[in-house]
């Protein structure tokens, strides 16, 4: 227990450190602000006076107005409400996908890199196979098997993200496992999994956090793409991709129907990407992953 807490606080410390340094950058603060807005919308959607589901067929495809800021869709539902609840769909899918990808990919990478023996060959061969499959096709095939649901979209996008995490974790372990403090833990009797997860992982965290952010943007895009192709989260659950899919049929009658959700989607992905880039640049300058030797 205590050891886990120690490792956790070590991880947390390093993450906070990075975030603190990052928020100092002007170029990313706008992205942060936008993502914060999206996240707040997703979390507090229920307390807002917005209803994404109630249909009003008499008032379908209305242009933006004071009662419906983003207008209404073909079933007379409030598009703003659907964009706000769609943020929840997008973020839940992205978050879930990143968690799945990390939970599977990171241990694979850790084990492969740590042992470096046949386990490495076997695991990385599997990862290469996964990597060779086009994300979207793989996700669609998986959804064809699992059936169409948010969980399926989430799992499909998550599995598609496994290789990214595995590769980065592996590279990190290979760089870190030779370091003295790792040897020290091994010498006093720390087992392999203790070393991988408690000693090495907290130090490999920064590039993994970057990866998580990059993957989040990919996941949001992939989820939207799946919805756009009609295999994403099933209606009537609001989803940006689904709104784009349906909205594009009404480009003549109600151009804002597709354009506004599309804009929000674009800005969200752009924000994630901006932060991801800034983080990468930041970590590149700071000798990625390997702890700094301060105080010397």
């Amino acid at each position, binding site marked *: 227990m205590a050891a886990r807490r120690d490792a956790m606080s070590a991880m947390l410390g390093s993450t906070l450190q990075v975030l603190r340094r990052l928020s100092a950058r002007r170029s990313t603060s706008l992205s942060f602000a936008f993502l914060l807005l999206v996240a707040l919308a997703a979390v507090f959607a229920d307390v807002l006076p917005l209803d994404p589901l109630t249909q009003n067929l008499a008032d379908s495809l209305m242009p933006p107005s004071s009662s419906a800021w983003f207008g209404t869709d073909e079933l007379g539902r409030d598009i703003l409400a659907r964009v706000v609840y769609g943020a929840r769909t997008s973020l839940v899918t992205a978050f879930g996908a990143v968690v799945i990808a990390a939970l599977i990919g990171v241990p694979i990478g850790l084990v492969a890199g740590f042992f470096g023996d046949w386990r490495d060959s076997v695991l990385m061969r599997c990862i290469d196979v996964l990597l060779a499959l086009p994300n979207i096709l793989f996700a669609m095939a998986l959804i064809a098997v699992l059936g169409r649901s948010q969980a399926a979209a989430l799992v499909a996008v998550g599995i598609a993200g496994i290789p990214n995490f595995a590769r980065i974790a592996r590279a990190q372990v290979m760089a870190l496992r030779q370091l003295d403090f790792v040897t020290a833990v091994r010498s*006093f009797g720390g087992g392999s999994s203790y070393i991988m997860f408690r000693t090495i992982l907290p130090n490999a965290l920064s590039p993994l956090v970057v990866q998580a952010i990059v993957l989040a943007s990919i996941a949001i895009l992939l989820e939207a793409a799946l919805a756009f192709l009609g295999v994403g989260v099933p209606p009537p659950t609001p989803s940006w991709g689904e709104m784009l899919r349906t909205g594009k049929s009404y480009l003549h009658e109600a151009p804002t129907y597709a354009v506004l959700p599309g804009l929000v989607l674009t800005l969200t992905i752009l924000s994630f990407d901006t932060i991801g880039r800034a983080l990468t640049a930041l970590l590149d300058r700071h000798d990625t992953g390997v702890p700094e030797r301060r105080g010397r």
Partner: protein
Amino acid sequence: MTALDPAAIVEELPRPLLQVRDLSVRFPARGEGKALKAVDRVSFDIGPGQTLGLVGQSGSGKSTTGRAILQLQKAHSGSVRLLGEELTTMSATRLRQMRRHMQFVLQNPYSSLHPRMTIGQILREPLLVHRSVPPARLQERVAELLDLVSLDPGMMQRYPHEFSGGQRQRVVIARALAVNPDFIVCDEPVSALDVRTQAQIVTLLQSLQERLGLSYLFIAHDLAIVREVAHRVAVMFRGRIVEMGSAAQVYDSPAHPYTRVLLDAVPVPDPVRQRERLRRAPPDLHFLEGDGGGCVHGTDHASSNTAEWHEVAAGHGVSCRYWPSR
């Protein structure tokens, strides 16, 4: 001079805590070429409360020997027995349990502490891994350890980078002591420190040995420090031990030419003499090959199937390998 098995030399010593026999480590060759024999048929014993100093130039295989003993490096052949138990063939689980009897103090105190853990967390780690202390007593034990290495227990919440090198090495030593080991490999424990701090750490190690009855394998290339701390000294050259004896025997009457070269290389405090020595041409260092060739004492080790080892005095042995060619 008669050829003796090195084991025979240590027979009269108290029951050895650590027994190393014919330990060899090889590293696969990079690309073409032969595998590197980083450690070659090394044998020695260390008794309880004893320190064996292991000296030799950089690259001679000292660290690899230490790591092979601690099973951090796979041995190619040979045996390592700690408290009578064979370590080289032990299961991973049992080995982890055995690690509480043997610990490691690394050379670089800057890199051997986890940079993102507090001193308290670092010292708690081995206790948690070995479950040697009930959770309620953890804090108390950590304070005790800090006290043992003369650090203020109030520093528990600090991170390694807030400490000086000497303080960090104390933390490293405290961590090694956490599980009450019997034996510690100290691999150049002071070479990264300034001279004053070196003395303090050496004193600390000595006092800990006295108080806790520890055994050390003390690896160093600084012969002066080794003379101070070691009861016995082994000289290593190209992966082999070429001479071993009590500190006095090895330092005062070196038997192997390489030992003499090593001792001659020790800087002397007198600057005039030092300058003069440096001006002198280095001795002919064309040593015989480690394998093959005749014994300088004329013994045919191959046909008599004896080790290439000769006792020059009680407890003082020397190898007939790596003598200068004539």
